[in-house]
Every structure is written in structure tokens, then in C-alpha cells.
């Protein structure tokens, strides 16, 4: 028990180091992770599938390599969670939806996503597939077709979403790292709500081959980890050109982990007024501003900047993302995989309608129908084309500001984690959670969320995690890691709240 607690508190890099040094076997690491998952997954809902057998097989392979004296990868023996939107060969993959389950049989992809294959090539272990909002549509993981995930800091609250399961698994120390996907903030917002690090890379920086598509002009795969360096190492492994993804950039990958040692002396940090106004919870604002001043104390220069089109980001996003989703989700038609419903004596159209009607949950239907509306004849110019033009203005705001500053610092989310059920009946309020994270997706920019000091919810109560968001120009991820590592170092002495973490006595 004592050793398990110790292993579960290692960072991803510490796990890899201890395994490489032979202090612990990969199998012991895997068993420790499985024990913790066993204890915490039922109350917290982090994993949809736990892959114990696969993890132990992968762990024994790592141990065998070590015994034979063969070189070990950068993630050798590190248990990771994979958002259920990423394909894993032979392992159930549902994207949080019942449309990918027939009878009691979930879909098992015949191939691995490129990002997943790259993790295995470095010796990582698959702990399981993480819970998520259905088709990544949501900000609380309550839209999972199976069960909601809960925030380890306060299980009556959501962990955010849509990569909520990945965030919970990391924040509750079941595993030191995970992959998520971020279309409008789905890695960064749950990282902020649960107190872990979440990175949305530059659009095209990471392959999307094997990522189940939601909105193709916005989707990216991103790492989550219990610390900044762990997230940096994961990104180094998954980033880079993939001939199987025509939208992946053929550009060299920077040394992100090394960049964490760089510091922020001379770094120009833009602070946009539009991200600190109405709607931002005062207690969150205080902690985010305090973290920005820490950067200044460490040698950065703060520059007030303006991003005037920020207030249109939510409307722009919900036109563009739903339009793309209505097209991408056409592939779930009951023909090739997953669910099928055939009404008696019905034709193929009746089969499509019945399958999709039964297979998709309410938020997915809402977005498909909205997307169909904004693309339909007579509304295309008024909504879809208009939103694409506003998207250009949002991009230009950033282009202009990045002429003056190196990074932009903002809150990741306007509040601390909200209560389960609090916003479920009000889709528009739920959408407004993403007001600070959507612009990076619309502009294709890299952004990350790093924990700062916690803040109480607005009605009072125990402090909850808060995230600082850092944004950079395209391919400037290294700069974001440098600044995030400084924030992390300043705040390390303060323990993030984790009522259900393995060391804390469970209530």
C-alpha cells in the first residue's frame, strides 16, 4: 500500500526514470495504477474501459526489454489514459456514444490512431479509455452516454469536458498522463477544473489519424499530465508530420521538455482586457492575476493588449463547429459499424433515421440539427459564411497582438468547476463556459492550461482548482511550456485540493 501511494504520486517522467533505473518494474507500476483505478473509478467515472490485461502485457514487454538490456523508450512503463475518441486497435472505442455499441458489443477499431501508436513505440502502457461527452460535444462530461465523470476535488461538481475522464484520471492520480482532444477547449477547461496541465497544440501539429472527427477545422489531439514537464514529454512524442493525415504539418518538433528550463526573463506577456471583464468570477480573477504577476516577478514584461472580437467567439464557434459536425457525423449510419435499427418494412432511409435517432443523445442531435440549419439554403450566407468572416477577424486580432507580445495570458475558464446538473438544461449557458478557450481553436493557435492557486466557488466553500491559460503564435508551444513551468514552480509548495486522491483519507 505504501509503495502504491508513492508510485501514484510520481510524475510521468519520474515513472519513466524509475522504470529505466530498475527501481521498480513496469509491471509493479501497472499493478499500482490498476489498484488505484479499482478504488477510484466507480466513484469518479474516469474510465469507460479499463484495459488491465493489455496494460500488464505491455508492462511485461517493457520489463523484458530492460532485462535484455535493450534501449527503453521515453515513456517506458508509464500508464496512460486515452480519450475514447481515439482509436485503439482491438480495444473498445465508443466516443462516449451508444451509436458505437451494438447489443452489448462496443466497436473495436481495426487500427491504432497515430498518436496512440507513437505512445506504444515509446513503451507507454494503456490503462484504459477515458470517459467523455458524447462525440466531444459538451463541457462537463455529463453528455457521456454511459455515466458522468466527477471532479476529484469535489465529486458533487463536474470535472469539465469534453475530455473530463482523462482529466479526472490524472487529477486523482490514477495515472500520470493522458490524451484528450480539444475542439473548443476540451483539454484545457477540464485541466483547469481538476488541477492538471492540459495542452492544445497548434492546429496540424499533431496527427489526427484515428481521432473520431467532430469539427475538422478545429479538432486537435492534446496531452494532459500531472505536471508541465510530463505534458511536454507527451507532446514531443505525439507531435510531428504523419503521412496518413493530410492536415498534419511537416515541420520539425521543438524540444518542449528542455524548454521548461528556459525561464521567462524578457518574455513579453500580453494581458487582454476582454478576458478579465464581466462574467469572470472575482475569486478566479484574483488567482489568475496573481499568477501573471508571478511571471512579471520572474522577469517577464506585462503588456495590456486588446482582442476586440473575443465576444463573438462563442457564436462563431457554434456556427462553424455544428456545421462541420453535421457533415462529419453523417458516417454514423448503421452500415459499417456500431448500432443499427431497422424498422419493419422500412427502406434504407428509415434505417438511417431510426439508427441515428436511437443512437445519438440530445446534445449531439441538437448540434447536428443546428449545423444542418446554418448550412441550409437561404441561411448559409447569413450564418455559416458570416461566421467564417468573423473567424478571420478573430484571427487578425491575434496576428496583431502577436506582433507586440510573445505569449498571451488569460483565465482558462470563467469560473471554478460547476455542480453536476447545474447547467444541463441550459445548453447556451453551458456553451459560455468555453468563452476563453474557443478563440485559440478558431485561430489554430497553441494554448495550454496550468494550475494556479485554487479559489473558492462564488457561494463560498472549499477552494477548487483554477487554470491559467497561455496562448502563443502558431508552433510556439515551447514558449508556453517555458512560462507554464515557471508558474508551476512558484506554486508547487501549495498542494492542489484532492479530497479523493489516494493519499487523502476517503470520506
Amino acid at each position, binding site marked *: 500500500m505504501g509503495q502504491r501511494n508513492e508510485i501514484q504520486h510520481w510524475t510521468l517522467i519520474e515513472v519513466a526514470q524509475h522504470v529505466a533505473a530498475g527501481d521498480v518494474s513496469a509491471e509493479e507500476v501497472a499493478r499500482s495504477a490498476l489498484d488505484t483505478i479499482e478504488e477510484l473509478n466507480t466513484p469518479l467515472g474516469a474510465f469507460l474501459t479499463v484495459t488491465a490485461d493489455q496494460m500488464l502485457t505491455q508492462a511485461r514487454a517493457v520489463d523484458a526489454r530492460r532485462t535484455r538490456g535493450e534501449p527503453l523508450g521515453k515513456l517506458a512503463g508509464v500508464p496512460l489514459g486515452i480519450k475514447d475518441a481515439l482509436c485503439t486497435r482491438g480495444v473498445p472505442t465508443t466516443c462516449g456514444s451508444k451509436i458505437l455499441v451494438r447489443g452489448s458489443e462496443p*466497436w*473495436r477499431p*481495426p*487500427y491504432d490512431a497515430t498518436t496512440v501508436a507513437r505512445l506504444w513505440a515509446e513503451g507507454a502502457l494503456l490503462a484504459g479509455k477515458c470517459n467523455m461527452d458524447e462525440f466531444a460535444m459538451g463541457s462537463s462530461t455529463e453528455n457521456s452516454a454511459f455515466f458522468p465523470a466527477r471532479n476529484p476535488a469535489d465529486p458533487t461538481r463536474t470535472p469539465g469536458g469534453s475530455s473530463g475522464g482523462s482529466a479526472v484520471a490524472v487529477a486523482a492520480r490514477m495515472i500520470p498522463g493522458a490524451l484528450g482532444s480539444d475542439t473548443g477547449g476540451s483539454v484545457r477547461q477540464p485541466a483547469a477544473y481538476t488541477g492538471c496541465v492540459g495542452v492544445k497544440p*497548434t*492546429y*496540424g501539429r499533431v496527427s489526427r489519424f484515428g481521432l473520431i472527427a467532430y469539427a475538422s*477545422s478545429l479538432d486537435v489531439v492534446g496531452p494532459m499530465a500531472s505536471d508541465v514537464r510530463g505534458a511536454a514529454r507527451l507532446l514531443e512524442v505525439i507531435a510531428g508530420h504523419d*503521412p496518413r493525415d*493530410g*492536415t498534419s*504539418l*511537416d515541420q520539425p518538433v521543438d524540444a518542449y521538455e528542455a524548454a521548461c528550463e528556459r525561464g521567462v526573463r524578457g518574455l513579453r506577456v500580453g494581458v487582454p482586457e476582454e478576458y478579465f471583464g464581466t462574467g469572470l468570477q472575482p475569486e478566479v480573477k484574483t488567482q489568475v492575476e496573481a499568477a501573471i504577476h508571478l511571471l512579471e516577478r520572474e522577469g517577464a514584461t506585462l503588456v495590456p493588449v486588446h482582442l476586440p*472580437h473575443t465576444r*463573438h467567439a462563442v*457564436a462563431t464557434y*457554434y*456556427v462553424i463547429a455544428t456545421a462541420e459536425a*453535421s457533415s462529419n457525423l453523417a458516417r454514423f449510419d*448503421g*452500415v*459499417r*459499424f*456500431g448500432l*443499427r435499427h*431497422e424498422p419493419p418494412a422500412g*427502406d*434504407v*432511409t428509415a*434505417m*438511417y*433515421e*431510426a439508427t*441515428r*435517432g*436511437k443512437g445519438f443523445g*440530445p446534445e449531439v*442531435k*441538437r448540434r*447536428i*440539427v443546428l449545423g*444542418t*440549419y446554418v448550412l*441550409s439554403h437561404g441561411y448559409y450566407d*447569413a450564418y455559416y*459564411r*458570416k*461566421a*467564417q*468572416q468573423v*473567424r*478571420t*477577424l478573430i*484571427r487578425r486580432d491575434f496576428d496583431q497582438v502577436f506582433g507586440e507580445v510573445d505569449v498571451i495570458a488569460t483565465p482558462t475558464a470563467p469560473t471554478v468547476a460547476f455542480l453536476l446538473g447545474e447547467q444541463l438544461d441550459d*445548453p*447556451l449557458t453551458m456553451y459560455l463556459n468555453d468563452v476563453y478557450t474557443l478563440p485559440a481553436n*478558431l*485561430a*489554430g493557435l497553441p494554448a495550454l492550461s496550468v494550475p494556479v492557486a485554487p479559489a473558492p466557488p462564488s457561494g463560498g466553500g472549499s477552494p477548487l482548482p483554477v487554470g491559467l491559460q497561455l496562448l502563443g503564435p*502558431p508552433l510556439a508551444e515551447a514558449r508556453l511550456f517555458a512560462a507554464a513551468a515557471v508558474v508551476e514552480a512558484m506554486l508547487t509548495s501549495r498542494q492542489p485540493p484532492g479530497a479523493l486522491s489516494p493519499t487523502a483519507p476517503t470520506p
Partner: protein
Amino acid sequence: MSHKQLPTETVATLLRLARLSATPEEQQKLSADLGKIIEYIQALQEVNTDGIEPTAHVLLDRLAWRDDILEQGLDRSEALAQAPRHDDEGFRVPTFVED
């Protein structure tokens, strides 16, 4: 403040276009929710976008074409294995052309 509903006939048309069945209760909810959301996205009309090019995709100009080389794809039996209905050659669907 009461929100405008999207007419139920419009919702029915959209559901048909999207090949989605929905119960009457779901249609009512969609009508109310979409009315509210469309009212919100209406605010985009205030933005002056005269002469502004639309952004369909970022960074497309930096992307390279791959060489057009034939590669081994997914094996047919593997591709068919998880289909709800299939035979040795392909996916099976209900009739859509009259015999």
C-alpha cells in the same frame, strides 16, 4: 424574457435532412433550444464583415500533398467484420432501389 421558438415544421424539415428520427417531446425541446441558440448567434449580424475573406481552415497554405503511391489498406474481411450486416463482398443494407 421569452425566446422565439424555431417553428416545429422547420425542425421537422431539418431532422429529415439530417436523417434523424425524434420523438414529439424531442422535437418540442429542439424547437425551444434552437430558437434560443439561433437568437444568440444572430448577434454575428452586428459585425461589419464587408470585404473580409472567410476562413474555412487555418494553415492550409502550409500543407504538402503526399505522393500518389498505392499502399496496402485495410483488409476487406477486417473492414467488414463489425458491420451490422454484411456478406463476403460488402455491407448489406435494406432495399433502396425497386427490383
